[in-house]
């Protein structure tokens, strides 16, 4: 295929579906008993400005296809960015060659035909934005200018970025399943630097959405980046102590994703999770509900089917504090003797049921402790649950923020942290596919100089 129809998603989708059909037919021809394939194509515009000037204009254009073939219980896979028919054939041949060397794996294979998504609702994910380089530049400049003009202590900038992308994704397998959909994603972000006698600090903010009209205003993003940066000036260290810790909402989302990793099939069948064999057990206090909404209209992670072609479905992972479901794809489900949960490729639009308290009420409930607004580095060991991260945030006394802190660590164990969750706030206020408020955790070890 020499020319792809980027501006017409229906034609592009048809082309990619034809490519998938050719891949699957070629796999059959080369002797595969079963096969699955996916293809995607995306185009985009990215503009970066810095200190009031354009820094880069990038025109992105990405293609990819991948195929997995099964010969009995042996498996091989291959991928390429080259969608021409000759390349497609070569890719299938490579996957088949690999499968002559891999070994019998009783769980290798497609999910049951009966589990394939039978209806593919339109999730309203495609809202292209025909914006010129000049208009995109104006938006990015408006965002950065709002940040730079916010306060005289804003002395420098890492700039503002604008991006708009449109893509089509198609998946098919030898059960006859073939599904695809176009989607768009737009957004901008700003990273700004403030300076005073205490030194330099940097922070950022962003917005992202399927539709342009759902984005935050450029000035609001810039101002929030400026406020976050200014609040960090004059940061101090804290002495080593054990105190309650309030994880602000966007940082709490990281804890939520630690949970999801720990209940994911790959970790469970490899016995590499601190939540092994916890299905049906209380992992959190009883006020906690964690669920996913994979078919949310315009959701940033929405999809009608997962990477195995299995229908996605809304479900609770945690209800009344009890673990209700693992996060399984076909392979892991087979290994665990269970059924796939339609989570091949991960969770989609994860949400925590918000509590009643706002940020102020949570700070008062904490009374004296640490508000964490940034985490650094790795340091979450999901085999043991041991947790030790670099952190920055604010020291809180009598429910009031006292001063910013940095160059400290917080440590504990995720299992204990989850069990000792005191409250979840209603202060969800960050963009992205995950919804949560702030999390107040009873006690952790803070280390500093």
């Amino acid at each position, binding site marked *: 295929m020499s020319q792809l129809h980027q501006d017409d998603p229906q034609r592009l989708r048809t082309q990619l579906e034809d490519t998938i059909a050719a891949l699957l037919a070629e796999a059959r021809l080369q002797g595969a008993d079963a096969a699955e394939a996916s293809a995607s194509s995306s185009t985009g515009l990215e503009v970066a400005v810095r200190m009031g000037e354009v820094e880069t204009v990038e025109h992105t254009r990405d293609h990819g296809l991948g195929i997995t073939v099964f010969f009995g219980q042996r498996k091989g896979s291959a*991928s390429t960015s080259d969608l021409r028919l000759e390349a497609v054939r070569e890719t299938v041949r490579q996957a088949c060659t690999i499968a002559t060397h891999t070994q019998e794996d009783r769980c290798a294979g497609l999910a049951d035909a009966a589990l394939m998504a039978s209806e593919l609702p339109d999730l309203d994910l495609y809202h292209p934005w025909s914006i010129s380089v000049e208009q995109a530049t104006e938006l990015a400049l408006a965002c950065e200018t709002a940040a730079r003009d916010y306060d005289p202590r804003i002395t420098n900038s890492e700039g503002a970025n604008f991006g708009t992308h449109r893509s089509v994704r198609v998946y098919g397998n030898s059960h006859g399943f073939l599904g695809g959909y176009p989607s768009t994603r737009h957004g901008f972000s700003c990273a700004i630097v403030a300076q005073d006698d205490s030194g330099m600090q940097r922070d950022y903010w962003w917005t992202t959405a399927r539709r342009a009209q759902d984005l935050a205003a450029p000035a609001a993003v810039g101002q929030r980046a400026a406020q976050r940066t200014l609040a960090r000036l004059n940061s101090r260290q804290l002495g080593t102590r054990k105190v309650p810790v309030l994880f602000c909402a966007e940082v709490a989302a990281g804890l939520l994703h630690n949970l999801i990793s720990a209940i994911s099939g790959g970790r469970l069948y490899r016995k590499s999770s601190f939540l092994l064999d916890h299905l049906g057990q209380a992992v959190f206090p009883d006020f906690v509900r964690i669920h996913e909404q994979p078919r949310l209209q315009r959701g940033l992670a929405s999809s009608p089917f997962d990477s195995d072609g299995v229908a996605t479905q809304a479900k609770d992972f945690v209800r009344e504090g009890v673990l209700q479901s693992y996060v399984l794809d076909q392979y892991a489900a087979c290994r665990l003797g269970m059924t796939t949960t339609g989570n091949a490729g991960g969770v989609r639009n994860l949400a925590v049921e918000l509590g009643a308290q706002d940020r102020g009420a949570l700070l008062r409930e904490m009374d004296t402790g640490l508000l964490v607004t940034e985490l650094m580095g790795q340091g979450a060991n999901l085999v*043991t649950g041991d947790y030790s991260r670099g952190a920055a945030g604010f020291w809180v006394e009598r429910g009031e923020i006292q001063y910013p802190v940095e160059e400290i660590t917080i440590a504990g164990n995720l299992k204990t942290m989850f069990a000792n969750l005191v409250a979840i706030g209603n202060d969800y206020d960050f963009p992205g596919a995950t919804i949560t408020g702030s999390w107040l955790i009873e006690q952790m070890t803070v280390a500093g100089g």
Partner: protein
Amino acid sequence: MNDPIAIAREQILDPAGLSERELDRLLGILNSPAIDAADLYFQHSRMQSWMLEDGIVKEGHFNIEMGVGVRAISGEKTGFAYSDELHFAALEQAARTASAIARDQRDGRTRIARLNAPHQLYPLLDPIPSLADADKIQLLQQVDAVARAADPRVAEVIVSLAAVQDIILVVGDDGRLSADVRPLIRLNVNVIAQHQDRREQGSMGGGARRDLHYFLEDERAQGFAREAVRQALVNLEATAAPAGHMTVVLGNGWPGVLLHEAVGHGLEGDFNRKGTSAFSGRLGEQVAAPGVTVVDDGTLPQRRGSLNIDDEGEPTQCTTLIENGVLVGYMQDRLNARLMGGASTGNGRRESYAHLPMPRMTNTYMLAGDRDPQEIIASVPKGLYAVNFGGGQVDITSGKFTFSASEAYLIENGTIGRPVKGATLIGNGPEVLRRVSMIGNDLALDSGVGSCGKEGQSVPVGVGQPTLRIDGLTVGGTDT
């Protein structure tokens, strides 16, 4: 064939029907008077990987990527477009799109001239067929068997093997044409050991710009398996790590991730041109203790972080960053060097043709001192001895950096005591190297597994250092 330009032509340009005449025309589009610099970056990359788990080789994958990135720079502005289609029409469109960054778009004239790299640090081979597929499977199984035989507590073993051949061809706005053929191999072993209800992990791997026989020499791959098991067993015995500010002794080799995070990123030219690094404007200042010399060296033969030429066609070099404690140099690509009035240090790197180059590290390490490592440990009344690490992260602007220990021990009265659980260490880049009070005579580089992420782009790198004593670093354990 030992001419990278000939290999790149045969693999990339000839199949696409591109000759010097077409390259001349593309450069003409990019060479209008308002363009200060421009380049075309052709890439053809092949990767094969294998994964063993549960004692069987379950997965194998093959990937081919090919494309061209076209960049045009006018002042501080960069226009960039790329294509995975290599025919002339697609390239011409990409060149026109990229050069739209400049207002004046009259075509200029350039003639192609080839440029040879000054060094050939690794063989120009394709590592994928360097070992028969059946022999790769056998190697993975041997490694698995060694890990399982090492101790009855070994419960899970995952072994992965990857081989990549990356062929690149860079055509600069001045007509310079250069190429590189880059092999890269890697083998990793991950082990879970179990004793009663407790499970702990250990991992070890290595790699090089070599063919796959590297892993067979001296039973190297089997050595990785034994080391992964050893780490997992040590962690089975580990108790709570201490919390607080204390003296830390870092082992040699991979703990050099300290340098990568604490000073390396902060000395990349882009941050310093923009004045957003905690090291900005500090050339000539004492930023480390006397005796501390840190270099970034892209010219070490066969190392994972090494390159014959960088991704802008500049020969790599050994750049001194800190000399005897004084900040003496930054790492530069062409754009930032030009804007700062200097020369490229051969540190312009990009993840692929679909990414813009920027200043990146190659192999970053500290030169050896004169202390016996035993003497360093013996000098510490109470502290932490950390010998293995996971990854790290840095905030360039505030200078704060973290790196997470995966194997560490208490030091009590100058001797190594009980193992402690992994913990994150946090410090301030411009301060931490001033607290280096002893430097070992045992400089070692890592085993060849490092990858560095910056602005969403990942590139292979190396780190290294001798054993170091640091008088005061915050250790993020739970034991107060």
